[in-house]
């Protein structure tokens, strides 16, 4: 059901306490819509949220993002993640980083990182290491390839494990991809040609329903496989 800000959402019957998700807010006794989109409800009925789409990123704890290094300090790096405030990435927030050997990121470098502090009163902070095991878990600088910007909605669907486009495209030509929740996607493949086509395909997929994925991807097959 499409809802608009100001609409009042009927409180779903559920034995557990209902949790109010994104796009909704609690106003006294009512659940009121704050963002336009489609009202969703978890099967268990204890969570309601509005699924919308937007371009501006607002940092959330533990989300993975792609940032661009804009400055270097003693304590670490200043990173642009497309939010309202620049994020800070501690020099020690890398796998195996110590006071002795700090990672050396150049200005303009791309980092795939995790939001470890998101508080409306403070500038966000990132790290490139899993605090539990001190491992990088794929976080860190990403080199080569190409980074393109897209809607947050597309990012979400690219992270969706049952996203068919990725499977089909991958079947045609193998490629690397890193998806930041901040509307930035990084891809790398054999040739620039392939990268360009992939980017086009991925951006295009936003408007295509999953059901039509196979046929949609077919269009790009020739371009992706042709070798010059």
């Amino acid at each position: 059901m499409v809802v608009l800000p100001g609409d009042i959402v009927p409180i779903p019957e559920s034995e557990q306490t209902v949790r109010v998700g994104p796009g909704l807010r609690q106003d006294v006794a009512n659940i009121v819509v704050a963002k336009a989109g489609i009202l969703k409800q978890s099967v268990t009925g204890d969570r309601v949220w509005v699924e919308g789409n937007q371009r501006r990123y607002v940092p959330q704890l533990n989300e993975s993002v792609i940032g661009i290094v804009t400055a270097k300090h003693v304590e670490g790096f200043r990173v642009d993640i497309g939010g309202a405030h620049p994020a800070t990435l501690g020099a020690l927030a890398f796998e195996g980083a110590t006071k002795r050997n700090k990672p050396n990121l150049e200005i303009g470098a791309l980092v795939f990182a995790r939001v470890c502090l998101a508080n409306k009163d403070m500038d966000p902070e990132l790290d490139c290491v899993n605090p539990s095991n001190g491992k990088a878990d794929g976080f860190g600088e990403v080199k080569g390839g190409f980074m393109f910007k897209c809607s947050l909605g597309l990012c979400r669907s690219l992270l969706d494990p049952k996203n068919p486009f990725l499977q089909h495209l991958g079947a045609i030509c193998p490629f690397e991809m890193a998806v930041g929740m901040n509307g930035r996607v990084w891809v790398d493949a054999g040739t620039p040609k392939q990268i360009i086509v992939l980017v086009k395909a991925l951006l295009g997929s936003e408007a295509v329903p999953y059901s039509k994925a196979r046929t949609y991807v077919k269009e790009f097959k020739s371009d992706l496989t042709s070798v010059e």
Partner: protein
Amino acid sequence: MNTGEQPVSTSERNFVTAALREGLRVDGRGAYEFRDLAINLGDGGYGSAEVLLGKTRVLANVAAEVVRPNAANATEGFVHFNTSFSPMASPAFEQGRLTDEEVLISRMLEKALRRSRAIDTEGLCIIAGEKVWSIRIDIHVLDHEGNILDCACIAAIAALLHFRRPDITVEGDNVIIHDMDERNPIPLSIHHIPICITFGFFDNGDRVLVDPTHLEEQVQDGNFIVVVNTHRELCTMSKAGGASLDVARIIQCTEVAAAKAAEVTELVRTALSKVIIRISIYCQHINQFITKVQ
């Protein structure tokens, strides 16, 4: 770093050039290929044109009023250009603060449109020393996805060609301005149609392309601007800084520019003709209506 513009990552930078080396552009275009051009006329009434060059969007609007001429040249009307870079076009454009880019672009437009004498200012005179038309062209940059200049130039020209000023009759000292639907409004007399073509350079000038996108502009080593009309007359050229170019390159570019200008002019003309027909039909209809009344 206080330009609200998003920084460009090294990976983007490198990829753009890498792709170019293989003759590819990130958006899949050929080097001398323009993005799709959409010209939308007359939404804001006479003399309003909204032009889309790919996703770059510029709105131009023309208005006229009767004023007193300068003592110095009593028989010349006025033509004012005003280019405004709306904050909606890009976070880099701030209210009340001009970036160098903005200044450069408005200067080039000024050169391309006014200095090339595209508009006949003598024709704007009503009563020498007393009353003349003052034409004001407002150019609003609404969406910045690269190559604002070419887009703005097209928009301005389209708006000027589409513009109609109310008809007038002079009786001694005073002037009667006729209502638009009382008498057919009058188009401006435009001498020629200057079209602006911008080239971007990469690899220290080894690779050239037209109509650079925003990303390409951020990465390019320099640019070269040619303003030319369908008679293959050059109006302005500009090569401000950036990578150096050999002469042959320049000649080649101007050739390309001339060709491109012809294409673009054609697009503008067709866009106009559609509306013009609409207008003229409308006017006939009005005339019939009037004659019936009399």
